[in-house]
């Protein structure tokens, strides 16, 4: 039996039309904004910022309030990086900036002038997975997948931090080489929450990649 046309709608399309429905409601965003600032109205400041995202130069004209996360998702349309809590507590928004992982939700986009940003889309492609992406698939390091881009960006950075001698709370010794043990992986990944509870498989995936490199 043929599927009726209305099934051929993407998840993103549904979300987008839902947002449009809200915007068309009785209270416009402008009115809502004015109501929340009864005192002196503040002018919105726009600012230009240039950065390299996944190796590609990008120049963006942004409201200064725009986080790096929103710039990536809403302006550059790289929706692999996810918004979870938007307060630096869950790690879903983790990206790699100048070689270090950060919470992109707690960083203003305009502060990234000249920076090199790597998102999940820049680590690998479906045809050519990054070793960490392949290891997550092999070890089933996810269930719903929402936290996974942040987990993988974090996991890649964790192995680099271990190699660079960055200590963790569970490191027995501060000096000398850091271990890539299971307990180290778990401690170093504590800023990435997975509500499906895939933690043990994530640690296994990381151990495999760490082992291959050792």
């Amino acid at each position, binding site marked *: 039996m043929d599927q009726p046309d209305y099934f051929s709608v993407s998840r993103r399309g549904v979300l987008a039309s839902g947002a449009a429905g809200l915007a068309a409601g009785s209270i416009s965003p402008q009115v809502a904004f004015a109501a929340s600032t009864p005192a002196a109205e503040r002018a919105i400041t726009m600012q230009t910022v240039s950065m390299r995202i996944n190796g590609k130069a990008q120049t963006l004209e942004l409201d200064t*309030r725009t986080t790096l996360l929103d710039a990536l998702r809403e302006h550059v349309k790289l929706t692999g990086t996810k918004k979870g809590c938007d307060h630096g507590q869950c790690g879903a928004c983790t990206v790699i900036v100048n070689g270090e992982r*950060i*919470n992109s939700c707690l960083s203003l986009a305009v502060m990234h002038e000249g920076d090199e940003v790597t998102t999940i889309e820049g680590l690998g492609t479906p045809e050519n997975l990054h070793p960490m992406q392949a290891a997550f698939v092999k070890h089933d390091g996810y269930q719903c997948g929402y936290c996974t881009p942040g987990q993988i960006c974090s996991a890649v950075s964790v192995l680099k931090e271990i190699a660079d001698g960055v200590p963790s709370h569970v490191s027995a010794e501060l*000096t000398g080489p850091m271990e890539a043990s299971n307990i180290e992986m778990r401690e170093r990944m504590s800023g990435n929450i997975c509500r499906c509870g895939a933690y043990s498989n994530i640690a296994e995936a990381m151990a495999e990649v760490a082992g291959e490199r050792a």
Partner: protein
Amino acid sequence: MKPFSYERVSSPAEAAAAAARAGGAKFIAGGTNLLDLMKLEIETPRHLVDVTGTGLDEITETDEGGLRIGALVSNTALASDERVKRDYAVLSRAIVAGASGQLRNKATTGGNLLQRTRCPYFYDTNQACNKRKPGRGCAAKEGVSRQLGIVGVSDACIATYPGDMAVALRVLDAVVETVKADGTTRAIPLGDFHRLWGDTPHIETVLEPGEMITAVTLPKPLGGTHIYHKVRDRRSYAFALVSVAAVLDADGHGRVAIGGIAPRPWRVEAADAALPDVKVAARALTQGASPTDQNAFKIALVERTLAGVMAKARGEAA
């Protein structure tokens, strides 16, 4: 988030001048705490001065044999510095006991000292909070106060200074260096940096408006055994209920500072003098405590955590 204008500056003097010029300005570096609070409209700066280009991101040796840590040195860089790991291990240990890897990569030495309290009533804008809205009262005293302070607190506010790094800096007798808008500089011992709440819990440090932290200096290494022990409700990525930063010699003499119980890292001269007697030291550290029913356990927890630290210093399993 309220709209704000934004500028980048390239020197500390320029930063201080920029902050003085614009009304309602704040400095921003890592931004991990400030931006969080701006999203909740607890912080509402009209202007942000981005100080990340001011070049204060190095750790250098001082003439006195200590270290000068630039205000922009990240938590990760500081905890990973070979000199810090070797000579000021309590500082490395304290830093990696706090936050997450992502946050430590972004958080700076200066900003971390200015981290605001994590009291839930400060964060919830529907609740009364003298720190957020002076004169409105304190919902925490009759509320969920397990995490909150027991010493140095006041009728107006029972919040704690939440950080770990500063507890280690306190035990190391660190000094905060600043520059003011008029270009003058000063050095503030860390023990004098955070104010007790009193009647003005919204004024948290002795910094003047527009005054910027440029560095934190450490005296020459103390030697001894360095320990940071943090007790919390979750094994990782949680704020302290009680933490102990300690530098001890083989006999258990030395110095301790306590985190998680007061508006500032809590260090008491009489407690240091009493070591290695844990009971007397703990009594000195919690003298005059005014806990709530929910956090009175912290008085015993200070003693027990201290006992664990002393055992560890003696080489016993803590």
